[in-house]
Every structure is written in structure tokens, then in C-alpha cells.
């Protein structure tokens, strides 16, 4: 257990908290009216929130939600973006031009603006939040894959495979994809950090999972309201979120340096 590995430990903690919470919820929605905004104690390690609910199990439930969202969205958008990027970069021509035009349009909406808009019109709720994030976050993977494929397409081993009669899917999967796995992994790590923030931002705006169920964004919003009389609430949630994002970003930096990916 080396201190240098702290980002991995934080990620592990996040995963375990989510896992434990999905096995046992510890009554995260139970209300103690006599203990509203109570400070941390031995019985309630992280204190209680504005409705007298135990913050620790709610924090774990929030970890579960964010893990679920990040896992699902990353899986969907990475596969979608990689496939589109492979096809676009490999075939070129009008397919490539059309796809790049579409990504340009998506990139014209800064940050999570488009996700906010889609989540808003689709209506609040977890599945719509996931859908909104899926619609808007595949672009990075597609652009990166396409760019990498373009530079690999004329490599000798690819040309050799072509002249030996290897099928196009085989060339893409066996001869191109392994070579671009490193930059894609780095991209996925950074994109996960952005997704953690995006999920929390949307729930902060009331667009994510609905009350009484816990999410970090919604908890932060409630915590901010009572930050003068019960700073423990907002601090616990904010510091958790911050350490997770920090851990993922540091992990991304280390992966980038170790795998020698530029940019």
C-alpha cells in the first residue's frame, strides 16, 4: 500500500462505496426529524442532512449513481466514437467529410451546454441524464480515432495485410485498433473526469436523479443552502467529488506520461 498510488485507492473507494450501496442501502432515505443537520458523531460518521438523513449512506448512494452513469456513458460513447472514427478514417471520402461535419456541429456547443439542453427537454431522471450525456460525449473519441487511423492507414503492415486479402474489419480490429489503444485509454480517463463533473452539474441543476434518491450534485445544492449553519454537509460532498476528479485527472496524466502519448 504505497502512498504514491493514492489515485487508484480513491477510485477503488468510489467503486467499493457504490458496490456496497447497491448491495445494502443502509436506509439512505430514512429521516430523523430530531437530528436535522446534526454534526458528525460516532453514530453518524459524516453527520446528517437538512432532512435528518444520514449523510454517509447517501454519499455512498451518490457514488453508486455516478459510477453507474460514468460506466454506462463511457462504454456507449467510446464504442460508438471508436467505430465511427475507424470507419471515417479508414474509408475517407464523403463518409469522412460527413462525419467530420457532424462532429464540428457538436463541437460548436461549448462544454456541457448541449447535455444540459437535452437533459432539460427530455425531462429529469436518471435514464434521460444518461441519454443526454451519451448524445453529446462520443465526439472526442470519434475525432481522436479518426485522426490516428488517418496516420496509420498507409503504414506498411496495414498495406501488407490488405494485399494478403485480410478483411476490412480484421484490419481495423487486429492491425489498427491495438496501435491506437494507448491514446484512447488516456482520452477515456480524461473524459471520465469530465463526466463525473457533468453528472454532478446536471443533478445540481435538478436534471438528474430525482428526490428523495441521493446524487452528489443534488446533495451539493442542498448543502450550499445550509452552508452557514451546517458546513459539514457541503464540505463532505464537495471534498468527495473533488478528490475523485483529482484522482482521475492525475491518473490520466500518469498514463499519458507512461504510455508516451502527446497532447
Amino acid at each position: 500500500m504505497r502512498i504514491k498510488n493514492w489515485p487508484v485507492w480513491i477510485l477503488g473507494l468510489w467503486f467499493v462505496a457504490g458496490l456496497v450501496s447497491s448491495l445494502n442501502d443502509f436506509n439512505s432515505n430514512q429521516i430523523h426529524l430530531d437530528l436535522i443537520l446534526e454534526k458528525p458523531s460516532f453514530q453518524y460518521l459524516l453527520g446528517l442532512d437538512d432532512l435528518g438523513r444520514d449523510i454517509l449512506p447517501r454519499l455512498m448512494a451518490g457514488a453508486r449513481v455516478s459510477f453507474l452513469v460514468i460506466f454506462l456513458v463511457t462504454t456507449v460513447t467510446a464504442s460508438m466514437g471508436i467505430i465511427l472514427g475507424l470507419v471515417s478514417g479508414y474509408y475517407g471520402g464523403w463518409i469522412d467529410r460527413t462525419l467530420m461535419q457532424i462532429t464540428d456541429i457538436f463541437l460548436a456547443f461549448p462544454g456541457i451546454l448541449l447535455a444540459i439542453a437535452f437533459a432539460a427537454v427530455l425531462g429529469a431522471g436518471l435514464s434521460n441524464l444518461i441519454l443526454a450525456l451519451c448524445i453529446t460525449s462520443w465526439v472526442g473519441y470519434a475525432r481522436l480515432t479518426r485522426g490516428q487511423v488517418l496516420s496509420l492507414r498507409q503504414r506498411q503492415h496495414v498495406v501488407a495485410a490488405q494485399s494478403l486479402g485480410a478483411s476490412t474489419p480484421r484490419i481495423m480490429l487486429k492491425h489498427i485498433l491495438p496501435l491506437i489503444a494507448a491514446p484512447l485509454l488516456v482520452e477515456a480517463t480524461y473524459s471520465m473526469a469530465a463526466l463525473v463533473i457533468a453528472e454532478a452539474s446536471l443533478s445540481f441543476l435538478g436534471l438528474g436523479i430525482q428526490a428523495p434518491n441521493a446524487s452528489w450534485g443534488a446533495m451539493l445544492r442542498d448543502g450550499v443552502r445550509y452552508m452557514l449553519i451546517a458546513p459539514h454537509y457541503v464540505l463532505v460532498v464537495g471534498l468527495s467529488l473533488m478528490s475523485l476528479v483529482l484522482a482521475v485527472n492525475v491518473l490520466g496524466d500518469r498514463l499519458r506520461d507512461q504510455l508516451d502519448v502527446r497532447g
Partner: protein
Amino acid sequence: MIKRLLGIIPVVFGVISLTFFLIHAVPGDPVEVMLGESASNADRMEIRAELGLDQSIYVQFGVYLNKLVHGDLGVSIHSRKPIMDMLEERLPATFKLAALALLFAILCGLPLGIIAAINAKKWPDQLANLLSLTVSAMPHFWMGPMLMMVFALWLGILPVSGMENATSIILPALTLGFGLAAILTRMTRASMLEVLNEDYIRTAYAKGLPEHTVILRHALRAALMPIITVLGLQLGSLLAGAVITETIFSWDGIGWLLVESIEKRDYLVTQACVLVVALVYVIVNLFTDLIYTKIDPRVRFLK
């Protein structure tokens, strides 16, 4: 340059189409969702006719485009005011906020990045790295309340929220600017490090020029190019960040208008806000590209 100008036409068209499509992503009948159950049938018919929802989607799109060209974004369902007027009222506040945030980010990020690059791998560099990493991990809705807690509630030297005082802008601008300052620090450091290894920097030192002249005149000028590109791209994140920052600090800009419209299900206003922010972003990026070609002779000669 003309090619670049023409290049944004399909993007602008795509942006307009996508925001037009937004209203149709509403599950069920958008009029029903927007007006709620208490609305009268007459109201419903009126809105439906106003939006052209009784016609085919192609006609609707045509009408939408035509109105847009004439600067007509429709009328808010909630306040019955023209949306264009609402945007005109709110946009200056957002621009003011973004400009101050940008200024803060430059004043903070550039010097920090330069100091980090000159002292690469020593403690000032590591400190700057730690700072920028930590700040990058603080989303606006966490940074904002923290600043509010320290400066407005504990120290009591700045207003909590609103925009009545001249100093009201400071906290939201800091909230918005910190993230960009962190990115700028990293960018400046990387860019400066690359330039500092060039031969002409060694030559400048060998000529006996003082260090600040070499750093500021010779190195920074060359390092500035990639920084400007990043700034242009990041201006968009300022606009997106304004949505949450303005909501936290009750800053009466377009971001808060967007959130309000979502809460009131006034989706035409939502649509218009998203469209305007995206268009501003496209234009800013176009200008960044043009400035880039203007000040970097290498880019010009390549053409």
C-alpha cells in the same frame, strides 16, 4: 481566409438544425409539457398555431429559419415577451462576467505558467502544478460556494450574490476564471518549455541580454501562439460555465435565463439561449483563427 469564412456556414446551419430539433426531443406533445395541465384549450391551440406544430416538420423548419433570419426568436410562453428582447437584456451581463473572468485568468495563468517553466522541476513548478490540478478538480458549483463562504460570509468583504453593487461581479468572475487560469498555467508552462530550448534563446542569453528581456521579448512572444488558440477554445467553456456560476450568484445573465427557462419549461427560451451561446462560440473561434493567421507570420507564409 475566405475558405475559413465559408467553412462556418455548414456548421452554423447544423447548429440551427440541432437546436430546432431540441423542441422535438420533448417526449410527448411539447405544448402539453410546456403549458402544464391547467392551460385552457384556447391557449393550447394558440401556442400550437404560433409554433406551427400543426404543420409538417419541413414547413416548421422553414418558418423557423425565416424568422431567425429576421432576428425573430419567437415569444416566451411564460412572460409573453419577445425572446430577442430578453436575450438583449441579459447578454451584456454575461459578456461582462466572461470578460472579467478571462482577464483574471490571463493575469493569473500567464505569470504562473512562465514562473513554472523557468523553474521547471523545482518547487515553484511543483507548486503551480499542484495548484492547477486542484483547481481543475473544482467544478464551478463547488468553487462558487467555497468562495462565497470565505469572502462573503466569513470575511464579509464581498457581496454574497446579486448584481446591485459594483463589487458583486468579483466572486462570480473569480469562480468562472479560476478553472481557465489553471488550464492557462499548464498551457503556458508547456509552451514556454518548448520555446526555451530553442537555439535563438541561447543566442539571446549569449548576447548578454538580461533574463527578463529574453523571457518576455523572445520566448513569450513565440510561446503565445498555442496559448491564444487554447484561449479561443476555452472561451466556450466560460460561456458554458456561466450557466451554473450565474445561477449560484443570481447574476442576471443568459446562463441564469437558461436555467430559469428550464425550470419553467419555457423551452423556446431554452432553445434560443443554447443557440445564441453556440453561435457566439463559433464566431469567437473564427476570430481566434483569423487573429492567429494575422500575428503568426509562419501560418501566413505557408498559404
